[in-house]
């Protein structure tokens, strides 16, 4: 066992040093979250740089040929005002 009397006494911080340390720690705790806000990416500002928006348009051209008797009729997109009762699609 080590003799306690042989160990040199640990230097104790005085109250001034402790106060300075507390101020430094408090300042860091306050400023770090603010810094993370400062360096995070900003949302685009209205009236600032605009990004291109690509809208894909589907252009259809109707080509008709003679119809078969008894067959249904066909209206191009947007031509018929009646609400469809049902629909057909690729299955």
């Amino acid at each position: 066992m080590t003799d306690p009397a042989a160990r040199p006494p640990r230097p104790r911080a005085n109250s001034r040093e402790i106060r300075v340390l507390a101020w430094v720690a408090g300042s860091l705790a306050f400023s770090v979250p603010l810094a993370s806000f400062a360096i995070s990416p900003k949302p685009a500002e209205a009236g600032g740089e605009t990004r291109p928006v690509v809208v894909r348009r589907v252009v259809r051209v109707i080509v008709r040929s003679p119809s078969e008797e008894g067959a249904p009729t066909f209206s191009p997109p947007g031509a018929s005002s009646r609400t469809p009762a049902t629909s057909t699609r690729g299955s």
Partner: protein
Amino acid sequence: MELRRSAFRSMGTDVELLGPAHAAFAGAAAIVREIFESDDRRYSRFRAESELSRVNAGAGDWMSVSPQFAELLAFAIEAARGTEGRFDPTVLDAVIAAGYDRDFDELLAGARAALRPPRPCGRFDEIKLEGHRVRLPAGVGLDLGGVAKGWCVDRAAGAAVDAGLPWALVNAGGDLRIAGEVPQAIPVAIEDPEGATLEAGRVQLHAGALATSSTTRRAWGDGLHHLIDPATGAPASGDVLQATVWAPTCAEAEVAAKDALLRGPCSLERRSGVLVLRDGRILTNLADGDEAAA
């Protein structure tokens, strides 16, 4: 015209019955549902216990089949001959090779690639059908998916009218049939193959059936979809994105739509319908609905 509607899911797709507000509607709806559930149990390739799975498992041997199965298979073989093989009930191996080896909802979740290189199909003429006995060539499997659905739609629409409805429209995932006498034409939207919320036009249907085949639906990857070109065994890649065909019955319309998708614009010389082409054009030989209404 006041409509009633009953919807449910069967055969891997949405099914609906449309009909007039009538006392027989609820009973007819129950019958329609039972027909779909029964046919799904018989013709599904995703059910190990289905009659189709049993027949496929016995390829190479003579198998006994139900009268209903024999009737549909006879229709499918005749349709394959009539379309010079563009419709082919023996595409099972090719569909699986393209990656469609499980229920479509599971397929989408797994985002699969093709499993094997394609091989041409076209062995429908080697199927032996004698009464209620069938023998598939060894190594050949049946996929009756689309035509079985059309067949079922026809039976269901007829049964709804037999149950007392003056008329009925049954629609299974876009394959639809009117039975009975409708008091006025039913407006049916044709969905655009390049946008589910867009329309490629509308048909005013007063009788018969419509079926649509598209290379952009039931697709799970670049160039991977369920419509196999039997000549190559690979998913079809022609000029037609979508074919909607009118015919007296839904089973006929289903076969004709596949034929039109592979045959291209000249199919309109034989059938009435609407083709949406890859270059943006819509070709149709149906009369103009606006002129007819004027």
